[in-house]
């Protein structure tokens, strides 16, 4: 039995609480399980399409499984100018997957992000929301190795 209802219920009576509920789900699973959306629609008494609409509008939410370590690479202009492309190439090579994919062992997912507000040290990536700044392609291996 899933615990979706249990995770969602503290937010059920908050006005506009569905976004908080989604945050709570994503906190637990690192993504929003597809089945949980139907549960949320039910509990907030909105249509399934509305519940989907909210979940898919926001890029921080991801429906469907992703890895234990979600690596997001900033592709906004300042990071781009500073060489984000090379970092992307290094990550893809090191992990053997392309942007948007998850490694077979379910450990790493690669995603694009827009500016995460650490532009003092471009290029920037985040791993499970923790920022890494001034990332050089040569340092990628070391950073990944620290994800146990």
């Amino acid at each position, binding site marked *: 039995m899933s615990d979706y209802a249990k995770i969602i219920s503290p937010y059920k009576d908050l*006005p*506009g*609480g*569905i*976004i*908080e509920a*989604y*945050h709570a789900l994503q906190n637990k699973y690192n993504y929003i399980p597809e089945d949980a959306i139907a549960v949320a629609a039910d509990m*907030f008494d909105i249509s399934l399409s509305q519940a989907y*609409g*909210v979940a898919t*509008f*926001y*890029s*921080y*939410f991801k429906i469907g499984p992703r890895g234990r370590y979600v690596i997001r690479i900033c592709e*906004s*202009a*300042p*990071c*781009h*100018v*500073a060489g984000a492309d090379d970092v992307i190439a290094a990550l893809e090579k090191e992990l053997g997957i392309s942007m948007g994919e998850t490694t077979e062992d379910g450990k790493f997912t690669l995603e694009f*992000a*827009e*500016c*995460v*507000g*650490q*532009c*003092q*040290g*471009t290029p920037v990536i*985040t791993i499970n*929301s923790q*920022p*890494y*700044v001034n990332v050089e392609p040569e340092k990628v291996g070391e950073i990944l190795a620290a994800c146990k």
Partner: protein
Amino acid sequence: MIIRIGLGSCGIAAGGLEVWDAIQKVLDEQAMDIQMKKTGCAGMCHYEPLMDVLHDGRQYSYVNLNPAAAAEIVSSLGEGHLPENKYLLSIKDIDKDIDSDLFSGQVRIALRNCGRIDPEAIEDYIDSGGYQSLRRVLLDMTAAECLEEIKTSGLRGRGGAGFPTWFKWKATRDAIDDIKYVVCNADEGDPGAFMDRSLLEGDPHSIIEGLAIAGYAIGAGQGIIYVRAEYPLAVKRLELAIEQARQKSYLGNNIFGSDFSFDLQIKKGAGAFVCGEETALLASLQGERGMPHLKPPFPSEHGYWGHPTSINNVETLANIPWIIQNGGQAFAAVGSDQSKGTKVFALAGKIKYGGLVEVPMGMPLRDIIYDLGGGIRGDGAFKAVQLGGPSGGCIPASLLDTPVDYESITSTGAIMGSGGMVVMDESSCMVDLARFFLDFTQKESCGKCVQCRLGTKRMLEILERICAGQGRKGDIERLESIALHVKESSLCGLGQSAPNPVLTTLKYFRDEYEAHIYEQTCPAHQCKALIHYTIDPEKCKGCGLCARACPVECISGERKKPFVIDQSRCTRCGTCVDICPDKWNAVQVD
């Protein structure tokens, strides 16, 4: 003696926690009685990890530390010895010239506590005069007097539009309803901007105090901070600060024994740039898709769940306690005629000293970039500075003497924006940059109005083909025509400002567009489809390094004879340029 370590998320990312641990270890081992204090970011991000030692009325700043170096410095503190080694950046008298040096020309109002106090300790904030302004308005001022003080200060919203803050407060106050709200917009999403993050991480209580004062002035009992989920440390420190303020009864019922009651909650965003727009923000607060709606009605009449709501930016609010404490006149004395006070800018891109600066309005761009930012990083020459992110524009070298105030910046075609300043040198292609910002706005467009949804897409397509070497005659004119339509007729500020990067680059760098379309060249050598790598047979020594390094094996030749690149297979990755020894420099890009 006090040791302060910068532990904003920028300091942590630079390795500040490791430095903290190393120092802690030395203090424990040698049983030294020195107080350690974590602070937010002082703005000198390029110097992190950073440690200030306060001793005998002086502040010793050690910068670009690593754990071992920090441990060594701290070891010698026991004998009262402060080593003057290569990590020591400056020694200042704490009360006298603390704002000198790198801070020269800076005036710290919004950032007054950042890098000085521990953002997780309410006592620190109180010791530096915190919550006294709230006390003063509640006990000594009527709401009308408070509004008047803000009016005198001339404070204009720092979120981008520059709308007078007192006017917005008054409109909300005058709206008739028993329930009113004040909202802090902490959804900072402009690429290149991180001022609000630093404020939230470095001095959360000043935002809370600012919100409470706003609440009193407009008659709101409830405040909401809408902060982006990408700022976990800001969220954590805000949560802690709110809890501490409640415990000290600065939030809650009958604050300072007055009949004013006020409380706060935090709502997290979820990664949608458009939610920084105030009506979209309200939709998001209500648990909906973050789509804006047409104004009027303005949030000050019809906001959160239909109640009058004043939405204010983080930096705007951080100024409020200072204004009450020092008087509106003191604030208005700083800055220029139409733009009072200071503005915090985030310096990023090809700048030597990346970080935050707070300057009086009216300072010329040149002084900010060269005097405070140290000029261009590397040996390139300055080309342009991008202000206001995807809603702003590029300002060329010829306009570097433009003063930073709302009107002057707007007259260049850019906007003041929230404070992001991305500096570019000659290696940046302006067409590519415009394409990049359009790619951003096109993705972030919520899709509600046709002008923005389709207009940004069509403009992006044109820019993409120009960068791909397939620009057509008439493309520039087409871009201009679409840009004007999107600007004039989009529903919200996102669409209305989305064409700015295109229009300003067209205005100041039209020749680059023309070179792409008519001459099939990219003057900055950035657009891959328009550059060619060739080997100069005169310079090539035939070592074969490039041929071995080429990932697609398109370079061939015999040893000791000039090599050749097969243009049809070359992917323009640039590996050959990098690997060819500098002394020969045989690979040419054109």
